[in-house]
């Protein structure tokens, strides 16, 4: 039936209204990625998480939503000439970042290499287990997320669940990760880890100081990785692995601060990055302190 004044028909109006409603439902419902949620919505999400964790673990868990600091770009440097391969960093990281103990998830992997062969992954061994370290004729290269500037992992994510923050930390929103593991295939450093089953953390060992994009307890079926201890570093502290290293081989700081340790290392030491030829441009540097 044609309306006499040539206006909108009932049918057109209903169709447009239905399409608009469907669009609104598709875009506005469900969890939001942290980078595009309004502040009040984020507060709500954090409150919900804290309540859920309190029920799950029977203790108060704080979830921080701290944003990147202005004029900060984080970088890391590791002194290969000093590392003795003691793996204190590995377990310091597990405790700080609530990684699953069983099945075992470890964000840092220490590779033992032979001195004669240089940094060669095909000749490396992560399962060395002697009585004492360092072993004669060997050196050690701990590998964790290299926080690439040109990160391959963030480009392949089909849901936008992983991205680079303004302070240079590559983060994962566990609520958006669908567990497809494309990012794990894309990462040339083996730095991303998948929760194949429900993570287990012994009662009382949970670190209750967490960050939304970092060490908050994860569910089964999501990918996780090193975040430069986002919950600590955005509050001014050093990452846990830096503090726990017994030989002081691990250094951390702000790349944009000319007086930082990182800048001193880059300007004065022999520095290398892993798999430079892939053009991933890591912000995790290795250097020779001697």
């Amino acid at each position, binding site marked *: 039936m044609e309306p006499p004044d040539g206006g909108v028909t009932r049918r057109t109006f209903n169709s447009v209204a239905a399409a608009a409603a469907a669009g609104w439902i598709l875009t506005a419902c469900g969890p939001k990625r942290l980078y595009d949620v309004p502040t009040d919505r984020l507060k709500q999400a954090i409150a919900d998480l804290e309540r859920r964790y309190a029920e799950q673990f029977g203790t108060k868990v704080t979830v921080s939503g701290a944003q990147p600091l202005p004029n900060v770009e984080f970088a890391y440097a590791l002194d290969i000439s000093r590392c*003795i391969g003691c793996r204190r960093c*590995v377990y310091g990281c597990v405790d700080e970042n609530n990684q699953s103990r069983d099945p075992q998830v470890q964000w840092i*992997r220490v590779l033992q290499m032979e001195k004669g062969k240089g940094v060669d992954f095909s000749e490396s061994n992560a399962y060395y*287990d002697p*009585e004492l*370290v360092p072993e004669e004729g060997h050196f050690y290269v701990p590998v964790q997320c290299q926080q690439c500037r040109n990160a391959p992992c963030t480009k392949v994510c089909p849901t936008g669940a992983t991205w680079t923050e303004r302070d240079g930390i590559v983060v994962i929103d566990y609520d958006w990760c669908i567990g497809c593991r494309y990012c794990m295939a894309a990462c040339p450093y083996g730095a991303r880890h998948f929760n194949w089953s429900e993570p287990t953390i012994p009662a009382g060992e949970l670190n209750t100081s967490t960050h939304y994009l970092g060490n908050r307890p994860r569910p089964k079926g999501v990918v996780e990785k090193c975040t430069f201890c986002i919950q600590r570093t955005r509050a*001014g502290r050093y990452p846990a692995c830096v503090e726990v290293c017994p*030989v002081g081989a691990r250094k951390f700081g702000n790349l944009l601060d000319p007086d930082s*340790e990182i800048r001193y290392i880059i300007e004065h030491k022999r520095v290398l990055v892993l798999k430079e030829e892939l053009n991933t441009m890591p912000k995790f540097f290795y250097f020779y302190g001697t």
Partner: protein
Amino acid sequence: MKALIWTATGLMVAVGLAVAARQAPPSADAGRAAAQSSAAPPPQEQVEVPPPPFTEGIFPCSSCHADMPVDRTRRELGMHTEIELKHDEEHRWCLDCHNADDRDYLHLASGELVPFEESYRLCGQCHGEKYRDWRAGVHGRRTGEWNGHKKYLLCAHCHNPHAPRFAPIKPMPAPVPPETTVPRSRQGDANGAP
């Protein structure tokens, strides 16, 4: 507990210094006065460090050494037998670093006295490159905040000054190889299913 020990050590050092200052013979006084005026480094040189890691009850050294005659010969010591010198021991002996006339101080090659709190200046005489890196926060460990207040550790907090090379240590357990990443609680199921 740790804080308590540090506090106690700090108190001991303070009390020890006060006692030493009162009891020392007048001949050493002039030396110490000179030391204290020259030992204070210029402000940009000063760094904040925790108290030196003394063995409990060993400081002030003068509480025993003040009345003892100085014997500079290399010999088997009757005391301090737990110290095994492995630090260029062929060329060095106690009094190359420790000050003979006032044992509560170390001394530089120039003869300038330095308190134990500034022992890094003594180490830096030979290990200049390491000293430079340490000042930049690159050699050794620093605690504090990456964008704020930082504290240094003395060389002696990590290296035993008498045998500075690190002893090998036991590594933490190796990771579980991938084929056994089935939860340990579910390994050995009758059906063998992961």
